[in-house]
């Protein structure tokens, strides 16, 4: 007896494969972003002269409670110079751009040592501000 093999009409799921590829691209785009610090609460100071900021090497945030974070990780102000240096070393850079996300009500006693530490490390200070209308 001879069996008759039925030919299956199965086409490769090209659309689904494209979906997977697209999702992978999105995944790596999100992963490539600088460390997420969106959970930190802070309000930027207002300024009339702002411009768009390009990607920075790292970010320093001072939240509403006056706590300091380097790339989303809480650090003490004394530990900042060392932290900046190690971040630069990890990226193989000698100079970098540091985003300062400082809450508008932060006092000079807190933000001045931060700015000094960044400039002492040879990095460019970039203040993240809200555009004043």
């Amino acid at each position, binding site marked *: 007896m001879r069996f008759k093999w039925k030919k*299956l*009409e*199965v*086409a490769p*799921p090209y*659309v*689904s494969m494209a*979906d*997977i590829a*697209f*999702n992978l691209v*999105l995944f790596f*785009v*999100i992963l490539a*972003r600088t460390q997420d610090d*969106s959970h930190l609460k802070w309000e930027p*100071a*207002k*300024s*009339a*002269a*702002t*411009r*768009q*900021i*390009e990607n920075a090497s790292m970010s320093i945030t*001072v939240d509403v409670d006056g706590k300091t974070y380097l790339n989303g990780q809480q650090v003490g102000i004394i530990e900042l110079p060392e932290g900046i240096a190690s971040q630069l070393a990890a990226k193989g850079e000698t100079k970098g*751009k540091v*985003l300062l996300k*400082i*809450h*508008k*009500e*932060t*006092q*000079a*006693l807190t*933000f*001045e040592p931060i*700015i*000094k530490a*960044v*400039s*002492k490390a040879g990095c*460019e*200070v*970039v*203040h*993240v*501000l*809200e*555009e004043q209308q």
Partner: protein
Amino acid sequence: MAGGPAIGGGGKRGSAAQTVGVLNLLTDLAFNLLIFFVVCASTEPEKGRPQDVPNVNEKKTEESKVQPVKLRVSRTDVFLKGETEENLPIEGLAARLRELLAEKTNPRERIVMVQTDGDTTYSQWIKVAEKIEEAGGVMTMLKVTEKVVTLRKSGGE
């Protein structure tokens, strides 16, 4: 993620399967578009202002012939430091600084030293920095002399 059944066959059953498959693919597409726009919205570039903060030694500037402009910024006011302190309104600060820096053509001489009180807010500091930049000055921070306080135990050392 809905892959959808393999498209094929004929007749009524085949056509129903094909419709389900197409619907699944459309749902996938809509979902992907949604994610794409969410990601786009969250990666909106931030706005701000770069600042060059040179390290200036106060002793060296005192030794040099040209005296830098010195400001004291309190929580609410700005003062021009000299023999006496002159209160400068923030609105007219840029114009006054422009006057003071008019004769200074060398960028090294256009330094404006800013001293803050401990309670000066970042918002106030940014306003002053903006005015200095507007006047063509280079802002630097004046080191406040640190006081060393030694605590002694009563009746102890």
